[in-house]
């Protein structure tokens, strides 16, 4: 699901202006909060609560970055992450627990945010993910 801000409310000075962020979390409350946060920072949001939704969302054409809950329903978000890796889209994990050793090995260098996190940390992390890209742009 893509929610876009109204063009009049769009402020190009916002930190995430012009970006499209995928939020994948099966906890609706958390997802809503994240969406609100990123939206407030100027980003368009693509959200997913299940793995199939996540995979479709990950293929969104202008996707800039993603934040993935490790567990989506009873599955992990690994399949979604794989699509992202394949597409070269930066992402971070947001998890209630540590990443399993296998996944740590599989995704080196991917930041992991352990729940709960202060609101600013989301933005900081996400910005660190997209900054190199932004600088290039």
């Amino acid at each position, binding site marked *: 699901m893509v929610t876009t801000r109204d063009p009049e409310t769009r402020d190009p000075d916002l930190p995430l202006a012009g970006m499209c962020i995928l939020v994948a979390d099966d906890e*609706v409350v958390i997802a809503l*909060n994240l969406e609100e946060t990123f939206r407030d920072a100027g980003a368009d949001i693509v959200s997913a609560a299940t793995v199939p939704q996540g995979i479709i969302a990950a293929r969104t054409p202008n996707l800039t970055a993603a934040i993935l809950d490790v567990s989506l329903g009873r599955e992990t978000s690994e399949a979604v992450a794989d699509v992202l890796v394949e597409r070269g889209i930066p992402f971070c994990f947001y998890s*209630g627990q540590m990443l399993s050793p296998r996944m740590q090995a599989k995704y080196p260098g991917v930041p992991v945010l352990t*729940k*709960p996190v202060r609101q600013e940390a989301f933005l900081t992390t996400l910005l660190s993910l997209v900054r190199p890209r932004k600088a290039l742009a």
Partner: protein
Amino acid sequence: MELVTDPPIVGIGASAGGVKALQAFFEALPDEPNAAFVVVIHLNPEKRSELAAILSTRTRMPVSQVADKVHLRNNHVYVIAPDSALNIADHMISALPFDEPRAKRAPIDLFFRSLAAQHSDGFAIILTGAGADGALGVRAIKEVGGIVLVQDPDEAEFASMPRNAIATDAADFVLPVRDLARQLAELLKHKGQDADPLIPDSEDEMVRRILSHVRVRVGHDFSQYKRATITRRIARRMQVSQQDTLPAYHVYLREHANEAQALFADFLISVTTFFRDKWAFEQLATLVIPQLFEGKEAASSIRIWVPACATGEEAYTIGILLLEEAARRDVRPEIQVFGSDLDTDALAVAREGCYAADIDSDISAERLARFFQREGDNYRVRRELRDVVMFASHSILRDPPFARVDMVSCRNLLIYLDRDLQHQVCTTFHYALNPGGFLFLGASESADNPPGLFRAVDRESRIYRMVPNTGERRTALPILPGTHHSATARAAAPHRLSGPSSDVALHRQMLERVAPPSMLVDETHRAIHLSETAGRFLQPSGGPVTTVATDMVRPELRFDLEAALHRAFDRGETTLSRPLVVRFDGAPQRIYLQVKPVLEEGDPGRYALVLFIEGEAVRADGDDAEAADNREPANETIRHLQEELQLAQSRLRATREESEAANEELRAANEELQSINEEYRSTSEELETSKEELQSTNEELQTVNNELKQKLTSVSRAHSDLQNLVAAADFGTLFLDSTLRIKRFTPRVTELFNITATDAGRPITDFTHQLDYDQLADHAHAVLRELTLLEHEVQSRDGGWYLVRIRPYRTVDDRIDGVVVTFVDITERRRVEEALRDSEARLKQEMRLVEFSRAPIFVWEYDDGAVQWNRGSEELYGYSRAEVLGRDVAALLRSTPPGGTFDAVRQALADQGVWSGELQHTTKDGRVLTVESQIEMISVAGRRLVLESTRDITDQKKWEQRRQLLLGELRHRVGNTLAVVQSLARQTLRTSGSNDRFVDLFEGRLTAMARAHTLLVDGHWEGAELTALARVQLAAYMGADPQRLRLEGEAVLLPPHLATPFGLVLHELATNAAKYGAFSTAGGRVLLSWTRGERDGRPILAVSWREFGGPVVVVPERQGFGGVLIERGLPGAVVARRFDPAGLVCTIEIGLEEEEHDGDDT
């Protein structure tokens, strides 16, 4: 005499080892050897003999056992039956019972002797055997002209019988048994070709040539031996040398130097045995021997001559009889028995005085014991007998005889001699004997030729007594024919007979009629022959009748005859006497004596012919008177002189005769001295031999002495060893004799028995002892009886224990001489044994504990399989004890330590001996267990035993994992929940507007979450029952009226990930209803219903929230956070809100995936 058609008979004697030899013998024989074979073998009288059956497999000839009486047939084999002897007569062979006791039986001798008695052409074969049976038999066979074959003793399994047979000198062939058979076949073939071995008379000349060859070679003349004997011996030698004709044999004889000696030996064969013809010797002992002792003083001597004594048996026999007689009398004159023979080999045997053992069949046991001593298989003549018999080489025909003997025993010699030699020998005997001496001859001999010399004492046993000559003086020794004389004389004799006898007789008759009366006189002046007309001139004088010529003629002629004879013999002159006046019936007549020596073959003086030539009658008147007148005084003187002369001459003659007799005696004495000398020489040789023997005995003794010395040294060393052993032995040893008297004891015995060294010899039962052991004596007796070892453990009075061992005392020569009792202190051993028993019991107990322990414990050998497997192991792993024992436990259980192999564990065990840690074990039914294992390796008697004890920690591990999982989950959930709470707070704050409202909203939402959580926790986080969830969330809004909320639907368990959001959704719906909807009015009601369904093949839960009786519903212009929660709060759910004016309708469709277990992913 045998019939020509009868086969030759071959007697075969064998004993020990004989069956094998016989088999080989018959195998080597041709199928038809042309003879009848009689096998005599020593058999066990009690057993059946299979010999016939055994031999019949080796020959084509029929073989039968002689049971009764059988006629011998050609090419048959006859075998002796057990317990019988064989006898042969007229080609009938018969089995006879034995007369002798078993030990003395000599069946081979018996048969051979009977064969010899019947057949002169038998064959005797001696094969292997122990003893001397057959030795006498072969001599008998050989004597009658048979042939003797003997198995080579080197080949024979038992050499004794062949050796004894060979020792008799009778063996013609000594060969290995197969060659023996071939030789026999050859001999039999020759015999077959020349059916009559006897030499025809026409071969006389050839026989003579053979004899003269023997004489030249050997120096003995046999021409006057009986022709039959001579030809038989020659025929035998021909057979042996396989010469078919006499000339051929003669050539053979000349070409083979040894043959003459062999033939000579054959000529001399004679069988002598001890007491040959027993009855004759019995007669001798009763009739003659006592008389010999009559009138003899101790200083005088009895002299016996045994000519032709051969191997001396006869001489010794007589010696025995004399010694026996002497023993019966007080006086014992010196006894001298002279044995003489031509055959020096035989004499050597005689001097040795050593005879085969089978002489015991001829000599009584008593005599054997007295006069012989046993030497192995032989009997040797004892000194006493040997000393009275002397042997000398002597020819009775050629050498001067022994003189002044009391008896001559000459048995079985005369039968071999022709009549002339018999005559001569008898005369010799007569000369040799003292007046009244005895002559003892063989069974078929007599001393009647010449007559008058001997008178029979017992004709049956051929005992004669010498008749002394009528004259006082001894008879002169008869002329001993020199061998040359006799040969030439004999050679000439047949010549004389070969003329036309009628002419010779006529001529002789005429000559006799015409010739003057004559008389032939020999050298001794005896008248040998008178012509028919010579009687007129004889006028024997009174007194004993004599044939001396000068005593026989008329007295008138005697003087001149005497002188003429002397001239004739001494000078060989022919003389013619002066005319002698002889008055025939008163008419005087002149007689001339012509004495002419008969010249024969240039040997003058042996005979003289006396011719009585009658002259003219003396006229009675003129001449006679004239002569008488004229010559009266002269005649008187002459007669006187003549008488004197005659007297002197007769004196001279007597003196000469005496001198001759004395001379002869001297010759005889000389002969005797020579024989004594020879005897001395042989004695000297014997002494020399004895000396050598003594020397060698001495050396032997020295050796023995040295050996004894060494033995003594070793014995004393052994003794000191024994002493030290006794001193060192830490146990008591007691030696008792068979009556339980103390022989010897070691010091430790004194601790138990109150004995001291001086008590040796006293019965052990006399002593008190410290042992609780009263049966010592009984047990010792039992050991002596049973000769077995007895052992007892006995307690001593001071509480110690002793092992008492009684064994028989065996001397080195394995004789039982008492018992040996040993007391070994085993107190310590008993204690150790008891401790061992205790520990064994304890061990057993512990083993059972292990065995029945539920904890798995097992033991395996480091280098081998399992040795123990307890019940705990059986229960844990499912393998029974039997399945595991002997197998490699690690392989069976697939023991692996985590992340490694079991080899590492083994290495650790080898290095450190212990290992403990986790292992994976696989049970029989394939379950993989995780166990905690304690392993320890110990070495027991070279085996490395590994003790392993395990504890199953599979469940523990599982719980551990589960705990880890739960912790993770908890952390996840708490984090998640806190994040949710954080988001809730932020979102609530974002929409609330005032602090009070935020608190109110946030608390309500937090409470809803908490209630859902409470339900989940109560349901073990497995899910929340929908009804219960609805009730806890909506209870606050229902107030007192239960009708405000209706719940319709089957029981549905919401999974945990849906339960919390669902609770929040219900809370928001209820909050909205309380603000704007059904719960805001008193009559408002809510129906919450749900059904299970299906969409696209997946299970779904369709939930419906329907409000009734509330205020009229208006669609809100702005959607708040609550609305967002309702519409998006359930992940994957389809939510629809319809703002029906009658009341809000909210439908929610949730996918109900099949719930899976927790923990299947991390």
